[in-house]
């Protein structure tokens, strides 16, 4: 039956992910390192993992009045809840003038509306469990044009699953009109598999179905070469040392000038990457498990993954 076929394919389910991977490899005390993006950013700086520059942060309602100061002289910036999840509460600004703020979608926002949004965020509207939150204002990534043909607005980002420091599977998430510029697959973004060995895209999924063309732009999804792939792999692998989390989702964006930047980390990465890759992840995790031993360095780990998970011939 379908149950057995999925098991034979090594498809990881939510129950199995939670019980066998997250509970085993991700100690709960490490979660705040990735749930709080401000702390992640600080750790990234300490470990030399490139990340978008932080312009400033707000911790209390009172801090909101500092916001115009922080963004003064900066045309483009991103406002994010430090403990947000699933891309909720993120606003990307294109420019501002006289208390009017322009979102990347072209929508104008008044200072009143923006202040309300900031206050809601600080009150924990977007944080897990509704705890008081902080707001971070950071560099807006100028995307490398490599994905221009296959993105509709928003942020195309690369998701790498890193198991015990080894890159295990990768995809790029492309925003669509339906996802309203967001790169989350469950909101309607397209996920496109990337071959770990070469950094070439292969095939995509949209709402759990295999697609070969972007639904909005119509461009081919396969055959794109992600630039600086080796560097991306190395960054992803290093995030293991950065957090200590054994099962980790690393989100990376490509900036046209600064190259790959680590955007955020996820201690409970989703499972759709398997659909994008057309392959269950369990087999790869087992191979890593066999090889892992006493923890080789990041370069050695990337080398192993590159050799072991080459899928270009198969595709």
């Amino acid at each position, binding site marked *: 039956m*379908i*149950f057995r*076929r*999925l*098991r034979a*394919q090594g*498809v990881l*389910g*939510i*129950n*199995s992910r939670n*019980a*066998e991977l997250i509970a*085993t490899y991700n100690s709960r005390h490490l979660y705040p390192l990735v749930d709080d993006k401000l702390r992640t950013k600080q750790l990234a700086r300490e470990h030399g993992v490139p990340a978008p520059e932080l312009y400033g942060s707000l911790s209390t*309602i009172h801090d909101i009045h500092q916001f115009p100061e922080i963004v003064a002289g900066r045309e483009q910036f991103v406002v994010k809840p430090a403990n947000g999840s699933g891309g*909720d*509460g993120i606003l990307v600004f294109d420019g501002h003038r006289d208390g009017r703020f322009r979102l990347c979608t072209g929508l104008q926002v008044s200072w*009143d*509306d923006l*202040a*309300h949004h900031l*206050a*809601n965020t600080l*009150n*924990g*509207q977007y944080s897990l469990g*509704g705890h008081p939150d902080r707001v971070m204002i950071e560099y807006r990534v100028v995307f490398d044009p490599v994905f221009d043909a296959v993105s509709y607005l928003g942020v195309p980002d690369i998701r790498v699953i890193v198991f015990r420091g080894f890159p295990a599977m990768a995809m790029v998430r492309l925003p669509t009109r339906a996802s309203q510029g967001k790169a989350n697959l469950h*909101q309607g973004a397209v996920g496109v598999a990337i071959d770990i060995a070469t950094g070439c895209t292969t095939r995509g*999924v949209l709402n*759990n*179905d*295999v697609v070969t063309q972007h639904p909005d732009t119509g461009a081919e999804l396969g055959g794109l070469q992600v630039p600086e792939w080796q560097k991306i792999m190395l960054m992803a692998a290093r995030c293991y040392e950065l957090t200590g989390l054994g099962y980790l989702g690393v989100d990376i964006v490509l900036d046209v000038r600064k190259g790959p930047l680590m955007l955020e980390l996820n201690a409970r990465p989703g*499972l759709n990457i*398997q*659909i994008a890759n*057309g*392959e*269950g992840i369990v087999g790869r995790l087992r191979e890593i498990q066999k090889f892992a031993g006493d923890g080789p360095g990041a370069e050695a780990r990337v080398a192993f993954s590159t050799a072991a998970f080459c*899928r270009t011939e*198969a*595709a």
Partner: protein
Amino acid sequence: MTLSARRRHLYLLSATLAVAGLSVAAYRATELGFPLSPGATSPLWTVEARVQFERFTPGPAKAMLAIPSDPPGYSVLTENFISRGYGVSVSQEGEDRIAMWAIRRTEGEQSLYYRLRVFRKADRRVEMQAPPFPSVPELEEPFASALDAIVEDVRRRSADVETFTATLLQTIASASPDDNVRIFIGDVSDPFAAAQAAQTLLSGARIPSLILQVLPLPDEARQVEMRPWIAVHNGKKWLFFNPVTGIKELPESLLIWRWNGDPLVQVTGGVRENIEFRVSPSVQDALSLAQQQAASHGSRLAQFSLLDLPLQTQQVYSIVSLIPIGALIIVLMRNLVGIRTFGTFLPVLVALAFRETQLIAGIVLFSTLVALGLTLRLYLEKLHLLLVPRLAAVLTMVVLLMAALSVLSHRLGLETGLSVALFPMVILTMTIERMSVVWEERGPRDAIIDGLGSLFVAAIAYGVMDMAILQHVAFVFPETLLVVLAVILMLGSYTGYRLTELRRFRALAGDRP
């Protein structure tokens, strides 16, 4: 702990919990008689034995009455001795329990009462030692040769102890007994005499036998007579025979009063002793019966029962004890099926509210409340309120809406509308808030899917929690919740796919790369 050690540990823990829960429940059900199904009633009989005698001159009097001890198939609830001025003592003499009334000085007609309340139990094991083989009675002629003839005749027409006894009793009881039989029983139609004759004849065949004294417990109140019954031992077990018909039977309605045929009453210092039995059946709630019995047994397990709590607290626990079952449904729905809901246990609380409103009315009321609350919440969004005040405002509006719905439905004569007050309003508020956030962030589709998921799970949980048998078992046997706990723990280690994942990953199941 390693994975396999953890698994073993978990299985062991679950098995222990389940066994503990089930065995306590089984003990309380079988030994203490707590009923397994709701509304069970147990028939209860009050047997009143009246001993009468007369003493013409003033002086001491003593009356002894054989009373039942632990009759098979019945449990004794209470027994009382009622008499005027008599001292009463009970003693065990061999297999007999004897009640003795004694008085120093009395005169005239005397009435002594022994009152026994019994109810039937399922277990009807007989624990009576097998007697030694009787020796062939030494009789005078013509009895000796009559006995030989009868035994010889009956033995020819039978195969074993069972058929021998049946044939013998039929021969004795036949409408036209032959001369040999007539010699034994004479013409008296006294059943005890016939039983006595049967015992003598059984001894002639060296079959161990007893004459029992049994009391029929009728369905309506009336006076009953003590009857004889024949028990023979075939080397393995006791067989019971109706001496009047020769049929091997021991009807449930017979209470075994005494394991021999001796006279029930012995009076010294009085004459014209007489005994009468009056039986009146009554029906009692099996639950309270079990409690009474447990209390009289002094069973500790019965003392630790929810039924011992004050009535009001009992009502609370009759609902609270259902919550783990609801939680189990949530675990099944979320981890095995994969339905998304708002808030982990919101559906359980909604399901509890459904118990009062009934399902359809509950769903309508819940949807109405959430829809109205959501509308107002989306309106509040425009006012740019801070989070906590906004939540408080939504909560207040929910309360107002509930009050309005109650008043409105009362006006319209729809009494179910009144029960809206039972909805958990804080939880409703959080649902409305979370739903409105999902609505804005992910669109109405996700919000409605999650909302319907919650309602669906609540309806399932309601359906299960509304089952009368589960309510009864969870409340009367709260130890069965240990079994629920064991199942939940086991489900906690389920790492297989959820049902919804089979659909989600269907693309992966088909084509192999």
